[in-house]
């Protein structure tokens, strides 16, 4: 599988008479895009706003973040299963708008639910101390604020909101069709020097149900048993996120397509190692034998694939770390050298122990991506996008705070991707 990725770096986005690409400036026809979003009739209104890096702005009620991509050559379409057939993707040529994210923001009725399967607050601050928590403080964000028609089911809201975002992303990417991209990069797993060690990426995602789900070719991964996929499939949007359970630990669609670990493994392919593929697995099973089996199966796949090394990341918290740790254990016992990226605990002041809810002695090469447990104070901002108030502690019934004011958060669980574990960020824990 050989995929050529053409990047059109975007430095500015504005509204204008017609949607087009003017050098590195993305011009958007507001009404045409709005019409596209409203087409399916589940939304009463959509408000489209452009938020740029460096602005004193806060985006709230954030759901998914999607990078505009489109297939210009080769089989299938980007975001297969949602925008196209389930034809296997990862070959040919794909175009992307670099540095842009399409986001949906909406207040989905909480229905007084507790537990995991509910939408929780997601915040991006474009400047200030909150900015370091999210890759989206560095992107030009096209935010679709959706006002929902009442009385639809969670599943209906979930699906239509996702489709709106994906359609908008493809719509914007269309501006690149029959243009030559300023930069092209080829992604190909061909092995030039067989002597190098073989390395796999174990990508453990979260998928338990509505609002805490990941899709592969449009199919929910709730019943995933670890399987081997080609990294190029992910670059073409085969993985789409529907996970809003804990916004700090989630991996949005944008990151599935720009996974920093895959980027690293490709960068060093043929130099430090041979990148031989991705093992997709699911965490947060409810029974210990399912957890153990999932870990065993990952290790067995890696062994059958003659892997010498593995990198593992996992989505979600608590419970999901058990599969991840059992997987590290199984891999190491199979003689496969493993490193992992994990967030840590440590309590409000950093003196709490243990740093990990569950760990195995074999996990001797962990990289920290920070913690959600420290309190965080966000300064007031000039502009708020996605709503007026922030709903905290939905489990407690939720209390609303004016979103533009400075916010004192007792954890950073609401910071969008704040402890996401695919490793885009530079925040880390260290001993003092």
């Amino acid at each position, binding site marked *: 599988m050989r995929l050529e990725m053409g990047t059109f770096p975007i430095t500015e986005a504005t509204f204008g008479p017609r949607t087009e690409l003017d050098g590195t400036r993305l011009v958007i026809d507001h009404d045409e895009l709005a019409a596209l979003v409203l087409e399916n009739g589940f939304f009463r209104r959509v408000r489209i706003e452009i938020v740029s890096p460096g602005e004193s702005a806060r985006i709230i009620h954030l759901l998914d973040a999607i990078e505009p991509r489109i297939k210009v050559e080769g089989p299938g379409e980007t975001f297969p299963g949602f925008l196209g057939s389930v034809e296997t993707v990862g070959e040919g040529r794909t175009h992307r708008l670099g540095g842009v994210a399409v986001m949906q923001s909406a207040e989905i009725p909480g229905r007084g639910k507790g537990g995991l399967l509910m939408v929780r607050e997601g915040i991006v601050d474009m400047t200030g101390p909150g900015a370091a928590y999210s890759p989206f403080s560095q992107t030009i964000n096209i935010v679709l604020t959706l006002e929902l028609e009442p009385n639809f089911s969670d599943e209906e809201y979930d699906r239509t909101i996702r489709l709106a975002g994906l359609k908008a992303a493809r719509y914007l990417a269309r501006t690149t069709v029959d243009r030559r991209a300023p930069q092209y990069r080829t992604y190909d797993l061909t092995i030039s020097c067989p002597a190098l060690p073989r390395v796999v990426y174990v990508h453990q995602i979260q998928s338990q149900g509505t609002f805490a789900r990941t899709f592969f*070719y*449009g199919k929910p991964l709730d*019943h995933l*048993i670890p399987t081997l996929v080609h990294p190029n499939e992910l670059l073409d949007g085969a993985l789409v996120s529907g996970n809003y359970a804990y916004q700090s630990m989630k991996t949005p669609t944008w990151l599935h397509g720009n996974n920093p670990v895959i980027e690293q493994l490709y960068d060093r392919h043929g130099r430090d190692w041979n990148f031989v593929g991705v093992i997709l697995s699911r965490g947060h099973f409810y029974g210990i*034998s399912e957890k*153990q*089996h999932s870990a*065993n199966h990952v290790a067995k796949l890696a062994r*059958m694939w003659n892997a010498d090394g593995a990198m593992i990341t996992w989505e979600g918290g608590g419970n999901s770390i058990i599969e991840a740790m059992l997987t590290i254990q199984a891999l190491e016992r199979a003689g496969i050298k493993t490193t992992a990226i994990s967030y840590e605990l440590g309590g409000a002041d950093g003196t709490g122990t243990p740093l990990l809810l569950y760990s195995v002695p074999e996990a001797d090469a962990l990289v920290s991506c920070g913690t959600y447990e420290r309190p965080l104070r966000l300064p007031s901002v000039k502009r708020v996008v996605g709503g007026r108030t922030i709903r905290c502690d939905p489990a407690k019934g939720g209390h609303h705070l004016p979103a533009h004011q400075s916010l004192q958060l007792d954890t950073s669980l609401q910071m969008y991707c704040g402890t996401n574990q695919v490793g885009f960020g530079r925040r880390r824990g260290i001993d003092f």
Partner: protein
Amino acid sequence: MQLDVGTFPINSIVFDHHTRLDGDTLRINRHELIQMIQEDPCIERAEIELAIPGESTRIIHVCDAIEPRIKVSGPGVCYPGLMGPVDTVGRGVTHRLGGMAVVLSAEYPRLIETGVGAAHEAILDMSGPGALGPIAHTLNLVLVLALASGYSQGDYNRAVQLAGLKVAHRLAQTTEGKAPPLRRRYELTPVDTTLPKVVYISQFYTQLNLPAPYLTWYGMYITDWMPLWVHPNEILDGALIPGAVGGDAVRPSSWEYVNNPIIARLYEAHGEALAFLGVIVHRTRFEVFEEKQLSANQAAKLAKLMGADGAIVTWIGAGNAFIEGMLTVQALEREGIKTVFMTYEHGGQEGWEAPLMFTVPEADAIISVGSLDRAITLPAVERVIGGDELCLDPEASGERVPAAGELRLPWRLPIASGIDHWGFGRLTCIEY
């Protein structure tokens, strides 16, 4: 993964005071086994009978046939997840009793009247035209189980299956500490890289939300899984076996799973004519076409990632599940993988009708293993094990007929292992 399978050929089974292996004679303490079985509250009464190939004997209400296998060294247990933990199997030493099977006979109360969940009658004739499958030619220790009332189909399934597995395990224990007369090593050793690389795609149908699983993998209910790359040795150790609700013609028995002749043949050819890459366990019978297409595409992609030049595809079941079979052949050929497909035919009672329900142009190399549709008459027999009456068509008439008499079957579905999905035999269909 290196697995040594030691075979102890059994030429006679006799009832005795102690259960032990005496040369090629298996001596069995019937009462010990019966007590062991009757520990389960779901089983009201158990009897044990012996059925010898060639004798005029008919076993009815056949649920499954299990080969006694035991892990004597190496990780895990045989029939993992059901008989022990989910540790990955396929390594070490496994002992088997050759030429015999533990056959389960139980008539399920019709808790589920119709549809895919319903138990179907399955008949096993030890001689005559009905002696079609391999388990008609093994020494069969038949467990006749009377089920206690008041439990669910799931409970009965578990009880019946565990009875069979426990007895099989107990019998295999007689080989411990003995040197097997026959020994064979199964290992996917690195071979001449110029040999064509071949993968075996074994399709199995299952169904979500049934009270009792059609199929389990390490004891786990197989739900809507994507294709699974597994090591053939795992199958030899019983990681994949069917449930025990009914062993009609399109549901191969556990005995056939662990003795799959295609795996045996590919191992023989490994390093000689070809390089055996492994097995893809492929769940079929999805209920949405998109899912059928996706699973077919993913199987083909997996084969491609594994570097396959050729593939053998087999399927089990009827109707619906056949579609994935064909779609998979198509996807494989489109990936440039030369594919051989094995299937039974329909063709009606005389053979005039269309042999296959659905085809794709790419399916240009099909092996026929006979027909399901041809009518067959089973002559009267001297002895029936498992009851006196049976009901061939519960959905329609529900009429019960004497089991010992002549049975005119409009097709072969009610014959246990009546279809040779995996090519044990030489039966085929040719055009006249």
